[in-house]
């Protein structure tokens, strides 16, 4: 019975020793072996089952993956004295685990170092540039324009982008270059940094909004006056076209009538003027014709007995009498 207990205890102790002398390393981490708190040997960077001296040696896992740093949004002024809230993110990696372990011990202190370094480098870079340099990226980009807006906006120089010298990428690179150098001593490699959020500070926003509102109102007024102007133009066209059409009609009508009269006159003249006889005959017949219209009911006609019609009232042969 005692033997059994002894065996059990011995087995238990052996198991405990075995368990504390092996450890596993995952793909995502590397190990620093410490002996009474002091690092010994090279860091273990390959994954799998590993052996150490039990009890004396401790393993300290260090992350092998790419890590993120998410900055807190902080307010800072730009070169043009605009207060903006800037939010950055960075990616970094532990390249020298031993150095990292000695200088920083854990990730929390690493993150806080990054906060300090990136925070101050960001402030420096932002203060050296105007806001638009941080907002825009592509230098010579031509914006699309609303075809409806084109005229109005071109005149007011709206719908165009504010020109830049450097752009966001270069500012990011400046921050990156300055910070990457400073974090190297911690066994850290900064992979890249990018602006995550840039926004107007709360206190600046009302002013920005006021500017946007006035800009929009300006466009609205422009539309209204364009509308009224175009309407006036159309009304003018209406009057012009109306006069044009009516006067053209008048002209053409008179031309046609004139030609018609001329033609008629020509026809008449040709017929009536063919010889002396025709002229005399026309005169006679036309006069006769006209009597029918000239002599009306209430005309008082004084006729002589000498006239051709009444000459016979005097006698059968007035011509002879007259001749006498």
């Amino acid at each position, binding site marked *: 019975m005692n033997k059994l207990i002894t065996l*059990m205890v011995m087995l238990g102790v052996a198991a405990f020793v075995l368990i504390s002398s092996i450890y*596993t*390393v*995952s*793909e*995502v981490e590397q*190990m620093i072996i410490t002996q009474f708190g002091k690092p010994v040997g090279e860091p273990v960077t390959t994954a*799998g*089952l590993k052996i150490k001296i039990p009890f004396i040696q*401790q393993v300290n*896992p260090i992350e092998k993956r*790419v890590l*993120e740093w*998410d900055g807190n949004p902080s307010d800072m002024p730009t070169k043009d004295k605009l207060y903006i809230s800037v939010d950055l*993110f960075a*990616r970094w990696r532990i390249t020298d685990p031993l150095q990292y372990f000695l200088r920083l011990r854990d990730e929390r202190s690493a993150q806080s170092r990054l906060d300090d370094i990136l925070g101050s480098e960001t402030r420096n870079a932002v203060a050296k540039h105007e806001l*638009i340099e941080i*907002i*825009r990226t592509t230098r010579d980009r031509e*914006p699309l324009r609303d075809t409806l*807006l084109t005229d109005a906006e071109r005149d007011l120089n709206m719908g*165009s*982008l504010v020109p830049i010298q450097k752009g966001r990428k270069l500012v990011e690179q400046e921050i990156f270059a300055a910070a990457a150098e400073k974090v190297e001593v911690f066994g850290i490699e900064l992979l890249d940094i990018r602006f*995550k*959020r840039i926004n107007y500070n709360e206190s600046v*926003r*009302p002013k920005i909004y006021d500017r946007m*509102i006035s800009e*929009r109102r300006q466009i*609205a007024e422009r539309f*209204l006056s*364009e509308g009224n102007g175009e*309407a006036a133009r*159309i*009304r003018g066209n209406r009057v012009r*076209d*109306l006069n044009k059409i009516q006067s*053209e*009609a008048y002209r*053409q*009508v*008179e031309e*046609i*009538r004139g030609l*018609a009269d001329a033609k008629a006159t020509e026809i008449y003249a040709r017929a009536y003027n063919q010889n002396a*006889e*025709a002229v005399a005959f026309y005169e*006679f017949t036309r006069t*006769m*014709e006209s*009597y029918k219209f000239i*002599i009306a*009911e209430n*005309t*008082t*006609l004084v006729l*002589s*007995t000498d006239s051709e*019609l009444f000459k016979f*009232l005097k006698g059968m042969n007035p011509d002879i009498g007259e001749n006498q």
Partner: protein
Amino acid sequence: MSSQTGNGKWGSPSGRGVNPGSELEQLIEQGQERLKQVMPDGSSSKVIVIVVVALLIGAWTAYYTVPSDSVAVVQRFGKYVKEVQPGLHFKLPLGIDTATIVPVKRQLKQEFGFTTPGASDPYQSPVAGKRETEMVTGDLNAALVEWVVQYRISDPVKFLFEVREPGATLRYVSESVMREVVGDRTVDEVITIGRQEIESEALTKMQALSTKYAMGISIDQVQLKNINPPEPVQESFNEVNQAQQEKEKLINEARRDYNKVIPLAEGEKDQRIREADGYRLKRINEAEGDVARFSALLVEYTKAPEVTRRRIYVETLQAVLPGIRSKIIVDDQTNNILPLMNLNAANGEQP
């Protein structure tokens, strides 16, 4: 033991989703030892029960199922061994092998500025709420942009082992790229005319970054949702729309007046011209008619001018004279015609 505490300390998802074995095993060992102390006489049947329980637990941790939309990444003592396709699979029990299930075929998405309720993926919904949507445009205006990124896990090994927080990193990348793209555009482009361009450019840039970051993620689509000007400015944007409508209205009304008058005038012009043409035809035909008549008469007239003249004269007077109420016929020899006039009749005739 070491890696376990390590992962806990680092607050990492650890890439060991399915590993109940190792902790269970420790518990059982402790239990066994306690049992041995409690029962020093060591009845063999109880030992057998314990062994059976231990075996059952071992068997329990020796298989796993991979759903059809996923693959499993198997690690032995933390070292990557293989990638396993969907189905029922076996592994070494008691925490020696761990299998992490990665949903590679599932279409995943991240929403920015809005939330679809009931999302299981913690990275799908916005963390910062409305602050995510606030952007500054290239003409220094402000805009609120909402969008969705559709992605898949294309490389489970990279996804697990290259970057610690691929989901969070993708969110950062997406926000950063969207601001970069919006920052290069005017507020009009962002709100109305440039949406498609923004989508495609953001997609290209996000794809480039996710490749560069080796996150094992492939981005399929970037879709813009609501894009609005900030609340206090919205009204003035509406004013512009209204003014645009008003402009169209004014122009249309003027066109209406124009259209009311001009085609009518054109018609009237044609009418007058046609009427004039009618006059022309009438005039010419009449002239020709007159002339024809005259010419015909003339021919006969020239044959006997004197008689014809006389005939016409007398005929005309015959036609004319009966219509005249007062006719006075005088003779040369009668010097005073007054007594002949009927004064009453003449007075009666005068108005």
